[in-house]
């Protein structure tokens, strides 16, 4: 999936990937897509929960071995 920005959260555990996602999204324009690279499986449940609460759109995730790529679109 095409993303406007990517943050690397590999090796970070809850809640740091979510905290870093929130910080990065703040710097982005509405409609832009953020890619979050992670390896803590908690993010599979946490990112949709975060997106629902904050009104941003969870676009899905891709798993490749231990690495998880998560995509979120900033709310309009």
């Amino acid at each position, binding site marked *: 999936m095409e993303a406007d920005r990517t943050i690397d959260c590999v090796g*970070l555990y*809850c809640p*740091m990937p979510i905290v870093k996602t929130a910080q990065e999204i703040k710097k982005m324009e509405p409609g832009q897509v953020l890619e979050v690279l992670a390896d803590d499986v908690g993010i599979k449940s946490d990112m949709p929960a975060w997106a629902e609460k904050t009104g941003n759109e969870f676009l899905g995730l891709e798993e490749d071995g231990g690495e998880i790529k998560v995509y979120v679109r900033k709310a309009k």
Partner: protein
Amino acid sequence: MAEEESMTLIVFSGDLDKALAAFNLANTGASMGMTVNMFFTFWGLSVIEKGSLDRGKKSPMQWMMGMMNRGGPGRRKLSKMNMAGFGTHTMKGLMKRYRMPNLDESITLAKEQGVRFLACTTSMAIMGLEESDFLDVVDDFVGAATYLSLATEGKVNLFI
């Protein structure tokens, strides 16, 4: 975007593990767009104290208590398996290895994210603590009615 929700955390414990749990939730809540208020009371005050050994206005008993349980985020101990400091030291090492923020970093992060820090004035009086005994993170020095009025607005209210 959903209307802004709020949460409150009573930080009663001065234990390292419990303080870390409180800050993890506070930082996550703030990241989720929630207004977060942390109310530090009783032993929890030690989490945001400078840990000065100055006598200040403390009575001899209060001063002694302060010496025996010196404040400051870096001096917090695990609630279990402290083992004269060895357990706490080991846990700090593990957290570093797994790149988890320590208590100081968690406090800084919470401030950056707009988490509000409230200190309980009654507990301060019992322990002989003054406003100047605290780290420069405290937003306000308040009582139980302030906490309760925030808690009635909060959807998540925890006592840790």
